[in-house]
């Protein structure tokens, strides 16, 4: 996760002052239509003294699919994992600026982590179902929310599996171990598991990087289906994928947000030279 060439920032006050023009400009491009569900305001993230995300300001629209692209170590995953505070697992980190989900500051001390993470679901790079049955995997979240009734849990399992388009594949094997599924199925199960907590934001951290093209296609179909109901933020290395699935695309480089725009615009007519170089494969 640690950016190799992250820019070490000067201390607090100075950091805020150096707000890159680009970010402000690109945010302006998409500042229209639906309200923002996630909004970052001069948000920076530090691993000890190293800077992972530097002074990012961006709004993510409700019901959209937003792709984050960029070279390795550019801070895109760090940014994504900041949204539901998964970075808390790493010791010695700190943040600057604000990052709000549904208008609440994520890094406020009073933030209820459990509520936040139930609102903001996350799908990881590697499929990580629990070593439990398919059924148990999906009801893990609802049980945390206090759903006890067996009938309601079964309904939820069916709904989530239908939503993630795998009900027909596994409806007879609900009580078999999730680890017996294929990689693609496991990843869709993880999505279903996340849907079961009824989030409004879905964070996907390179969800297809461990999958073959066919499984990838199914996940992409799934993302298309889920669009509108959920706000989806997807980190990907695959620019074709970003172009295929997303409404908006953000380009990160060296921890900074270089450009953020509508996907068709960014891929056909990037405003920045760096973006163009990256998407045409000249660097990165």
């Amino acid at each position: 996760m640690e950016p190799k060439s992250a820019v070490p920032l000067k201390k607090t006050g100075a950091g805020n002052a150096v707000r890159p023009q680009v970010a402000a400009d690109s945010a302006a491009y998409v500042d229209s239509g639906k309200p923002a569900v996630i909004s970052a305001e001069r948000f920076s993230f530090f691993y000890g003294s190293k800077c992972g995300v530097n002074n990012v300001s961006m709004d993510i629209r409700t019901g959209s699919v937003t792709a984050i692209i960029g070279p390795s170590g550019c801070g895109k995953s760090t940014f994504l994992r900041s949204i539901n505070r998964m970075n808390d697992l790493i010791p010695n980190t700190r943040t600057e600026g604000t990052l709000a989900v549904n208008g609440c500051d994520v890094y406020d001390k009073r933030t209820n982590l459990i509520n936040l993470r139930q609102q903001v679901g996350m799908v990881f790079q590697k499929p990580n179902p629990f070593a439990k049955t398919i059924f148990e995997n999906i009801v893990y979240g609802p049980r945390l929310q206090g759903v006890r009734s067996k009938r309601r849990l079964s309904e939820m399992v069916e709904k989530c599996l239908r939503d993630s388009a795998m009900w027909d594949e596994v409806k007879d094997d609900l009580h078999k171990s999730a680890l017996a599924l294929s990689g693609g199925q496991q990843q869709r199960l993880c999505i279903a598991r996340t849907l079961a907590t009824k989030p409004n934001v879905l964070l996907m951290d390179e969800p297809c990087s461990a999958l073959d093209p066919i499984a990838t296609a199914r996940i992409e179909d799934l993302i298309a289906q889920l669009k509108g109901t959920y706000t989806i933020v997807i980190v990907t290395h695959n620019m074709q994928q970003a172009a295929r699935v997303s409404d908006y695309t953000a380009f990160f480089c060296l921890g900074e947000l270089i450009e953020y725009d509508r996907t068709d615009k960014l891929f056909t007519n990037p405003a920045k030279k760096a973006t163009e170089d990256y998407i045409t494969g000249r660097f990165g």
Partner: protein
Amino acid sequence: MRTQIRQSLDKMFTAFAGSVVLLIAGVLLVVLVPMFRKGLSAVFFTETVEFRKLQMDLHDRGDERTLKQELERVAAARKPIYDILLAFSRGLDMEPRVKEVKNIYQQYGEYLNYRNTPKEQYTECRKQAKEIRDTILDALESMDKQVVLANLDKALAQKGNPTFKDTPVQHFFTVAEQYRKTAQTVDLTKRSEYLAGLRDVTAAIRQLFGPLPGEDEPPLPMDQYGATRMDMARKALHTLLWDEQWIADGPGKPLVKKIIARKTQFTGTELEPLFDRVEKNFNALLLPRHRFYWQYFIDDWVNSHYFGGIGPEILGTLLLTVLSMLFAVPFGVVSAAYLVEYASDNIWIKIIRICINTLAGVPSIVYGLFGLAFFVITISAIGKPCILAASLTLSILVLPVIIRASEEAIRAVPQTYREASLALGAGKFRTLVKVILPAAGPGILTGIILSLSRAAGETAPILFTGVVAMGPIPNFGTPAEWVRNPASIFGGLFQPTRALSYGSYDIAVGDRISMLVPHQQFGMVMTLILLILVLNVTAIVIRSRLSKKLRGH
């Protein structure tokens, strides 16, 4: 390096590693096979009729009628042997003879008093009787055959004396006649030698067939029965037939052990036929039969492991092991979880970790002394060696092992599991309980298996804290008592118990009994190994089920 050299080195290593593994397997076989062979002889052996009698007397096992018939048959076969022995010992053992003679003299005095014999006649009769008595006593004391025979003849000459007709004095003549017979056959100069030999022979006969007829019932059960097992019977037969002596070949020469047939020692005496008789009719005298004595695993001992089984020992070992696991596993797993999941990596945690690793290597006797000092002496609620103190000591002994294994297992759970659970909105504790511990289950079980074997086999920690070699079985009360007073179920925890490990140690150090009953000792060791094997196999089956479930097959 050249490819060829590399390949040959590779082959050499393979051969070396393979031979090391083979060596270990061989050592294991060399150690275990004789032990199991001896141990199994506690369960599979050839019993004698004495064993059946013992089982009937103590446990009411077997068919009473058949046993009675068998005992009658055996008694009939043994009678001639006892007769020979009795006749010979009568002729030889002077002390009872002297006593008998003196007794007869006294009886005669009483007889005369009873008849109100006039004083003069009384004195006369007594004088004559005293003469006879002294003659016989002289004969009994003398070692010279001529003197003996002369004295006896002198006494016997009085046989026709009408004064003594139908009086106790007649017994003098019976004794004299009997002794005359013996004196003619026995070399009287060797009398003390014969006596020593006779003592050995009688002891061997007692060992073989139990107390001699007409003897008082001995207080110890081990003396009440003859040889219960054929291997013990053969040992007794050997001491009956052969005498070991340390003899110098000449003056100044070192003593050499020589084995001499007793038959040659007693050549020409009345005792001589006894040896052949016992040897030839050995089976008829003992009625051997093969036996699978499975009750060995449930019976209590009789006469401190001389007979009987090891039921309480097995129970005690199981109890100690299970209890110590009950104490150690929750504490061990919780501390491991804390160390991995909660504790930040500071100097204190590092020190604690070093301490735990050091504790794992501390000799077990140190734990035993600690248990004595702390659980038995300091904690006044316990106050005396008992099961509770012993199992707590054992649990402290295995705690480091469990902590270390659990720590490794919890650390090995993929970080993605934690992330997945946390991302779904679970708290740290819930993640630990619902996701991490189940996933670490097989690894934790490995630690439990290791410590289980250790706890079951340890002797030193329980030595001072709660085991006894001999003693009552801990009393946990009856269901009726539990209803009346629920706390009474824990009463047994405050009593000492017996255990397999300490039991075999105790037999090994008590040299006399270990010579007599090697099968008991090896039986205990074998049972301990089997018990650990069973416990381990159970745990391994659970572990493989668990990991299979986790892998999803």
